[in-house]
């Protein structure tokens, strides 16, 4: 398995859906091509109904493309074994309510062909990773939204896939939960796992992704490295601590002589999120 094989390769994907009106077909995805290298974190962003979910489903073999191909680590998505390397967390996941957290992870592990001691160890490992050990024997029917997301991650990762696909991973999750999920994604990237996520929460995508694609009305309208895309090219940022007003005035003069313009100075703002986290993390972990 060479590293040159991209984790995800989608080539000219087209997907039409038949609507109730016989003649007109709805073209959900219109010639999307994208490629994700191994170890990257890729974010696919777009408004609701732009074709994000359909693209993911085609990649997972849940729908068959009208035209084009999808491959995961070189294996065509329509093949069942291509999913051995993938873990998927759907949007608003529900799991079998009658199972406990541990039983759920164990069930999905069995579906991947794990068993016995190996499976048990993996279950424990996953639950520790997503921080659900205390709730492992509680029925999933009683889990909060954040816990559902985390158990979803646990089941997605149970077979140690090299690619993780996340559909709106932080939608509806409170800031603390969101932060935990983001930290998890960073940890996974460190391990070399490729992450492909879809979201319309742009702030969060910005924090986590290496590369980003914008999809709109079924077409990929922009794609590239995050840094390249959002850096405002003609501006530079400098942040000072304990600077006196006189120093700031001198820097402004320096800028003008250098042919630049001081756009703005003042106190940078922290984000409301950081404030929230700072206040609530003191009170312990969430339920």
């Amino acid at each position: 398995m060479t590293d040159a094989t991209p984790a995800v390769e989608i080539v000219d994907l087209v997907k039409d859906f038949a609507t109730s009106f016989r003649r007109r077909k709805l073209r959900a995805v219109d010639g999307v091509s994208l490629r994700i290298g191994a170890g990257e974190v890729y974010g696919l962003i777009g408004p609701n109904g732009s074709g994000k979910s359909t693209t993911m489903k085609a990649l997972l073999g849940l729908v068959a493309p009208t035209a084009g191909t999808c491959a995961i680590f070189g294996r065509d998505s329509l093949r069942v074994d291509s999913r051995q390397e993938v873990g998927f967390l759907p949007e608003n996941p529900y799991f079998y309510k009658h199972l406990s957290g541990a039983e759920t992870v164990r069930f999905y592990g069995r579906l991947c062909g794990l068993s016995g001691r190996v499976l048990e160890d993996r279950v424990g490992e996953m639950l520790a990773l997503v921080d659900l050990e205390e709730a492992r024997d509680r029925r999933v029917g009683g889990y909060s939204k954040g816990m559902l997301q985390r158990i979803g991650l646990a089941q997605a990762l149970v077979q140690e896939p090299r690619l993780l696909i996340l559909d709106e991973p932080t939608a509806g999750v409170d800031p603390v939960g969101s932060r935990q999920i983001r930290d998890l994604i960073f940890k996974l990237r460190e391990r070399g796992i490729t992450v492909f996520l879809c979201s319309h929460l742009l702030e969060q995508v910005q924090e986590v992704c290496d590369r980003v694609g914008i999809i709109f009305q079924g077409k990929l309208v922009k794609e590239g490295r995050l840094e390249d895309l959002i850096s405002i090219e003609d501006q530079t940022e400098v942040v000072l601590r304990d600077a006196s007003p006189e120093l700031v005035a001198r820097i402004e003069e320096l800028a003008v002589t250098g042919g630049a313009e001081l756009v703005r100075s003042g106190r940078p703002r922290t984000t409301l999120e950081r404030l929230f986290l700072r206040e609530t993390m003191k009170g312990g972990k969430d339920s």
Partner: protein
Amino acid sequence: MRRPGKQGIGSHGGRVLAITMNTFTQLVRMKVFYFLVVFALIMLGSNFFDLPQHGLPETFGFSVLRAVMSWSLGAMTLFSMVLAIVATALLLPRDVEDRTLYTILAKPVPRIDYLAGKLFGVLLLLAVSLAVMDLVMLGVLQLRMSLFMGQVEAMEAAGQAAEKVARMRAELLANGPDWSLQGAVVAVFLRAAIMAVLALFISTFSTSTLFTSIVSFLVYFLGYFQADMREAFLRTTGEGLGVLERGGALLLTLVLPDFQMFNVIDAVIEGAAMPLAVLGKLAVVAGFHLLFYLLASWYVFAGKEV
């Protein structure tokens, strides 16, 4: 590092087993199932009360034992039929609604494994429930038998003719439980199994539990006429039946299952013996349906977009 999940038969088995046990526990923990269980237990428990039956004194013990058997097998038939249809009908729509279907198919799970697991989960549930009801029925029969036996022994002690006592004892045993009765219970299971796989098939192209259930019940009732339609097609050679009617009879004969064959159960209650060969034939018929309709379900489901 060896990756698990290679596509050998063993791995199929592991996945199917996981889904089977999951379906089984899911159904067992459903409130609907509890209600049905209570219903069935009430029906069986009613055997403990002396429902008046008319019988001549010569027919010693017959009516009570016969009544217990027909009540019990009747309850088993109803319960297994409702369970087979409704439980199967709700499985796929519920997975789609809860989106658990996505998470399962996003794993390396072939769609046939998924369907097979669902079906076997229902079959396991049917087998276990029928086994429990069978035990209850045998328990009641044994209880009644021993009461009657006590009466026979009392008569013996009171000095009745040995021949008469022996005759009563033999007659009592003849009306009691035997292997044919167990065969009848197996036949109930086989019939329900056919309905379950049919319901599964219908649910692959229907999106509503209600619709699937209604159509399945319809198929069940029509299945009792299938044999008549088959006879109509085979026996009449054109006189009395128009081409259209024969064509219609043929079509329905080919599409519907033959449930009249399972009326052997009635014969067993009436006292006939069920040879093993007959049970074997019923098993072959059931097996054929299970295999074909599972594959047909796979065919439909494989083309379905989730």
